[in-house]
């Protein structure tokens, strides 16, 4: 058959078969036993031409309500942010996106250097010493942090704040089961990790305590107080953090965090229905040799020229095999590149300005809701999210809002029955005053 991706002509085929010394391509499959040989063709949809497929996929995509033509107040771990246009132009350089892992450094210096720069930027934002080249996402990064902690402390129990992202909590629990690690949730008190409860729960079998900052409800957790309790017990202090918020907030590294993990989706990466995003993983120098995944290091070539290589590979699965403490191989390199370009475009000033804009706009929105008589649940210092109480199930509200081209906030009742009719509202720098005011007005009927 002829296809634009398949260059082999009939004449090529004949010459090649002759060189191999067989009569037909079928002969090359004679080692597949007759009893397991698949006959014929798959029963799948027939091929479409380029233009026909483009049309079909365009129509399919239009069955979705996207964030470009609707106004979104939905966050809960994935955010609609300003994406510098330049990001996609860099990503579209196919020298980057069609390359494999940079195992041959002489012809992969571009990728290696870009990742070295990414590692540096993550260290800068989180206030940590070492960052790896990326993880799948914030949730699995947190799970790897819990596993690293158990291995490091030789303890088999992890405490996780109930104010951590619910899906991340589920992922941590799934991974923990694999390693026979117990995961116990610390309750929250009015939307912030309950330190009194933590004090009661902590003991010398706790490998790590996992806190999210800002937490799932948008609140700024008291890391300084938490750190004292955690380190007094010689447990590791693991912080899941939205890196954009660290443009405004004191970084977890300053509070003595041992591991900071999270997702860099906020920097130039589309929401893409949940993935691919870009997990990051940062630690103190002490834990450098325990980090999962790939690390890029600086070195010199035979002529003394600066260059970059994958390093400390003795940690990794392809060397350690069954002794490896993580099985990660593929990561999110291309998205780490996207995040690097976005962090560069924003730069030192932009990241501060953008973080501040999120706080200002979320604060303004919260004040507007208050003025309109809404009750704010868990009210207090927050980043770009807060919780409002409604008189109607959030799902119903959101379906009504959709008709007005508004994507409403997250339904907290999904994870906690006690929070039925509670909506987690996210307001990023992209939302204009007009959009915010319209949203608040549309919500009027649902005041609790």
């Amino acid at each position, binding site marked *: 058959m002829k296809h634009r991706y398949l260059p082999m002509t009939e004449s090529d085929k004949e010459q*090649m078969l002759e060189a191999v010394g067989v009569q037909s391509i079928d002969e090359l499959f004679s080692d597949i036993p007759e009893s*397991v040989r698949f006959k014929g063709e798959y029963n*799948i949809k027939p091929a479409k031409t380029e233009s026909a497929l483009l049309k079909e996929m365009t129509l399919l995509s239009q069955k979705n309500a996207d964030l470009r033509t609707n106004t979104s107040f939905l966050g809960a771990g994935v955010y609609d942010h300003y994406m510098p246009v330049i990001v996609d132009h860099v990503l579209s350089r196919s020298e980057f996106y069609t390359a494999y892992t940079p195992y041959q450094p002489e012809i992969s210096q571009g990728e290696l*250097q870009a990742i070295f720069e990414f590692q540096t930027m993550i260290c800068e934002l989180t206030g940590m010493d070492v960052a790896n080249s990326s993880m*799948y996402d914030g949730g699995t990064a947190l799970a790897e942090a819990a596993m690293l902690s158990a291995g490091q402390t030789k303890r088999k129990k992890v405490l996780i704040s109930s104010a951590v992202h619910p899906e991340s909590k589920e992922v941590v629990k799934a991974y923990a089961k694999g390693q026979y690690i117990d995961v116990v949730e610390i309750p929250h008190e009015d939307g912030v990790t309950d330190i009194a409860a933590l004090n009661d729960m902590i003991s010398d079998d706790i490998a790590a305590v996992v806190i999210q900052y800002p937490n799932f409800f948008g609140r700024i957790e008291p890391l300084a107080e938490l750190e004292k309790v955690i380190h007094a017990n010689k447990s590791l202090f693991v912080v899941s953090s939205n890196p954009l918020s660290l443009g405004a907030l004191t970084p977890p590294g300053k509070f003595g965090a041992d591991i900071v993990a999270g997702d860099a989706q906020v920097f130039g990466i589309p929401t893409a229905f949940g*993935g691919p995003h870009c997990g990051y993983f940062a630690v103190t120098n002490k834990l450098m040799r325990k980090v999962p995944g790939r690390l890029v290091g600086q070195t010199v*070539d035979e002529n003394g020229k600066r260059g970059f290589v994958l390093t400390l590979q003795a940690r990794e699965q392809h060397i350690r095999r069954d002794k490896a403490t993580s099985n990660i191989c*593929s990561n999110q390199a291309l998205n780490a590149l996207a995040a690097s370009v976005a962090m560069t475009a924003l730069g*030192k000033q932009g990241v501060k300005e953008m973080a501040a804009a999120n706080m200002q706009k979320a604060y303004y929105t919260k004040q507007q809701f208050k003025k309109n008589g809404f009750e704010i649940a868990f009210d207090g210092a927050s980043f770009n999210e807060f919780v409002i109480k409604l008189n109607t199930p959030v799902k119903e509200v959101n379906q009504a809002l959709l008709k007005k081209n508004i994507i409403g906030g997250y339904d907290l009742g999904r994870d906690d029955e006690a929070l039925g009719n509670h909506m987690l509202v996210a307001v990023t720098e992209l939302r204009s*005053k007009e959009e915010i005011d319209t949203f608040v007005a549309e919500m009027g009927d649902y005041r609790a």
Partner: protein
Amino acid sequence: MHNEDQSLIFELSRPGRIGYSLPEMDVPEVDLSELIPEGYQREEEAELPELSELDIMRHYTALSKRNHGVDSGFYPLGSCTMKYNPKINENVARFNGFAHLHPLQDESSVQGALELMYDLQEHLVEITGMDEVTLQPAAGAHGEWTGLMMIRAYHEANGDHKRTKVIVPDSAHGTNPASATVAGFETLTVKSNEHGLVDLEDLKRVVGDDTAALMLTNPNTLGLFEENILEMAEIIHGAGGKLYYDGANLNAVLSKARPGDMGFDVVHLNLHKTFTGPHGGGGPGSGPVGVKKDLIPYLPKPVLVKNEEGYSFDYNRPRSIGRVKPYYGNFGINVRAYTYIRSMGPDGLKAVTENAVLNANYMMRKLAPAFDLPYDRHCKHEFVLSGRRQKKLGVRTLDIAKRLLDFGYHPPTIYFPLNVEECMMIEPTETESKETLDSFIEAMLQIAKETEENPEIVQEAPHTTVISRLDETLAARKPVLRYQKQ
């Protein structure tokens, strides 16, 4: 590629330059110190670079020129299936209705996305011969771990707690034993025989009532089809274990043999290999997992279902292993894979494997006279050569790989699988033309000749790259993992 030293982006930074255009601040502002508790307002700024947009673009363009991708040239990296990444995939994945969807939107507003996912699952069910597929795992290794966790849950649900061992062949990918460990199993290795296939006698020796599963790649990492697959399935199933298929090499058997028909209970696929989601310099990938009926209850949740009202997620899965990833997988990569499958159709996918296998056999026969061919039989989509003949002349496989860089090629996978001395693992893929294969063959033959006549040129390679061989020992001994301002 040019030769001057490449500055780090931080070294190009100048205070006061900007590369952004943030939305207007159109709400009344309050002092941040009123919004942030004392001690929590950042004082020391993050030292991110400050550049104009053009300078950023020049920097990354320069970096891209120091990188080799499939679009730059031939990339016969064994086991990685470095085929062409179709451009239509990139366009489709960037449609607003795919790229800019929030995973927690109301299901009624994402029916197109769910339809795509569901149809992709259906296509993968047919391609693998399994009963159900989940798209949640983010990559191959993630899929392996997911599959093994399901196998563990299955045995535990049967009260079968003694099944703590996972068997892998000595030729297995490193992720296999690592995934087994992370899923709480111990790994046992089964030897290969003189034909490069799993030694059935050794398999019978290691299998037992503690066997949870055997993980297998078929064709294996030597590019050889495990002909005794049905006997192996019988041995494992007979002992009460499950058979796991590592789909890294699926490009070899599309329309020729389905894992489900070979007796496998669990399969993971690497959509970024066989189904052209680009490799992206190491990721993102996508690692869907397919299972047979008896493992369906253990699939990660939520599970996508279709009914009269449309598509929705089922979260009520009491026996599920739980969630392995936030949201529903690497959707953007799944969009690309789906677009590819729909571009190829059934006859296209069949041709993919046939051409990939003919390309590999052609190269193998052309290179066999100059290098050692440890397993002299038809290969599938890839094959291994041994450089032991060259090693005797003082040229190692690493040197051959580095010399290939001078010819503009990415070298094959080297020193893997571990059971072949001075191994080179070559996978041409179906998207390469005969002319490309012939040029590569010529380069390899020339290197073999140089090894005999002028070995220094090979030993000292590469000669034409932007940088020569790097000091990896220094990098590991004195790790410099980030830039520090001088």
